[in-house]
């Protein structure tokens, strides 16, 4: 299948490994992701703190450009995904708002009509490839590796129709398809603090500590995420958490595309495994039989 790929700002910088591994793994699985041309920021959370219509307009421009390609848009970042998904829903049901924004989009020769779907990268792995095919294609089964699935917020909420919003299991299924063991822990869908890590540091650090503690107490070797902000909060702030709380966390946190890509036999370097502050590479070497 072909998709319009919307990387989002983080994937060009702090989450480059997510971008590289997403493209590489999708290609390996026969999915074609064509980067959306001239995409702009989704507004994150901060734009909505200043003006809502302008923030929706940012997403509407991206959606209108994706529409032109005739393809569904797929976002690897959970915040981009949530913003585009919500904008799509809002503009489709609010005629006046859509007209207002469409008038502005004319300045770039664009129109939003709401034809395409908005998908998270996880969705296309689950729907397009499917777990069965994934299991067949695994060449490095990660037997014995204990992985904590971390959902975070925006991939689940506020979208009300995703099945099992309180206790989702799609990440567990993806992890299991790689041969690894998905551990169960109560905080898997609890917030990582998001941008509070910058604006309300102490709150976010405590949230991160709680998550790391919960995952470690339940036997996790590493954590897998689907969102660049979750990754940076859970991984890069471990030293600060350790200093403040007197803990000794050194837990690798990486993206589901890196885990699956590695299981599919893609070399670690091609997935940018090792660009983390606590590299998961040492945990993975025993499985390496890279194709």
């Amino acid at each position, binding site marked *: 299948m072909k998709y319009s790929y919307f990387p989002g700002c983080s994937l060009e910088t702090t989450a480059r490994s997510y971008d590289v591994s997403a493209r590489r793994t999708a290609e390996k699985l026969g999915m074609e992701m064509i980067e959306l041309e001239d995409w702009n920021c989704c507004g994150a959370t901060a734009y909505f703190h200043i003006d809502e219509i302008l923030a929706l307009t940012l997403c509407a421009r991206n959606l209108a450009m994706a529409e032109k390609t005739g393809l569904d848009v797929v976002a690897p970042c959970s915040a981009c995904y949530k913003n585009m998904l919500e904008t799509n829903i809002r503009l489709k049901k609010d005629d006046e708002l859509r007209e207002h924004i469409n008038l502005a989009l004319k300045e770039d020769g664009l129109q939003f009509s709401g034809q395409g779907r908005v998908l998270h990268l996880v969705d296309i792995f689950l729907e397009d490839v499917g777990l069965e095919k994934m299991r067949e294609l695994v060449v490095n089964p990660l037997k014995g590796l204990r992985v904590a699935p971390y959902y975070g917020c925006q991939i689940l909420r*506020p979208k009300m129709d995703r099945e099992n919003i309180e206790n989702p299991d799609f990440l567990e299924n993806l992890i299991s398809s790689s041969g690894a063991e998905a551990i169960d822990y109560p905080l898997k869908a609890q917030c990582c603090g998001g941008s509070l890590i910058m*604006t*309300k540091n102490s709150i976010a650090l405590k949230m991160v500590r709680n998550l790391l503690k919960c995952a470690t107490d339940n036997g996790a070797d590493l954590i897998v995420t689907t969102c660049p902000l979750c990754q940076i909060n859970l991984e890069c702030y471990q030293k600060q958490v350790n200093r403040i709380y007197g803990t000794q966390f050194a837990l690798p946190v990486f993206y589901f595309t890196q885990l699956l890509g590695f299981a599919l036999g893609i070399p670690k370097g091609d997935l940018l495994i090792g660009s983390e502050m606590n590299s998961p590479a040492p945990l993975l070497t025993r499985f390496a039989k890279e194709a």
Partner: protein
Amino acid sequence: MAEKPSFQKEVSTLMSVMDGNPIDVCIQCGTCSGSCPAVEYMDYSPRQIIALIRADMRDKVVYSDTIWCCSSCYSCTVRCPKNIKITEMMYALKRYCTWKHKHKGGAIGPGFSRKFVKIVVKTGKSYEPGLAPTFMFKYGIRGMIDNMIMGMSLFQKKRIAIIPKTVKRINNFRRILNRIIPVGVEQ
């Protein structure tokens, strides 16, 4: 002369709050507060914020820390038995405070969000190093050192871009944003 609208009315008209149920249907059950991962840091819980709005106690709400403790995780929204979009209400309050320049002294959130918008309007994309000055120096010397070490480590791992990227049709992009404002703004 007509009476000035109540604070509750003002908040309710801030767009997406009206998308769900209005806050007058709140039954004060506290499910939102019980679901909030940041509630222990707030001066008023989300349930109390709704009660304060309904009591028209505007200053208690706009100068509270609560608004800036919300990480927009939507745990409250998906659990509210009365289908009030509490996260959207927090967003609306953030907008109310940033527009009126009324917020708790020392809060980093408002300046951070303003800077974020400025960067996006300028380049069409967000750029983390450009945001750093809004919070870098607000956590004491230790915090500053921590942030610098973090920046350097990310740089070493090639996870920070030195030059911000800009969308190609940036002029069209800015024209779109200008058109949203009813009278338009000359470039």
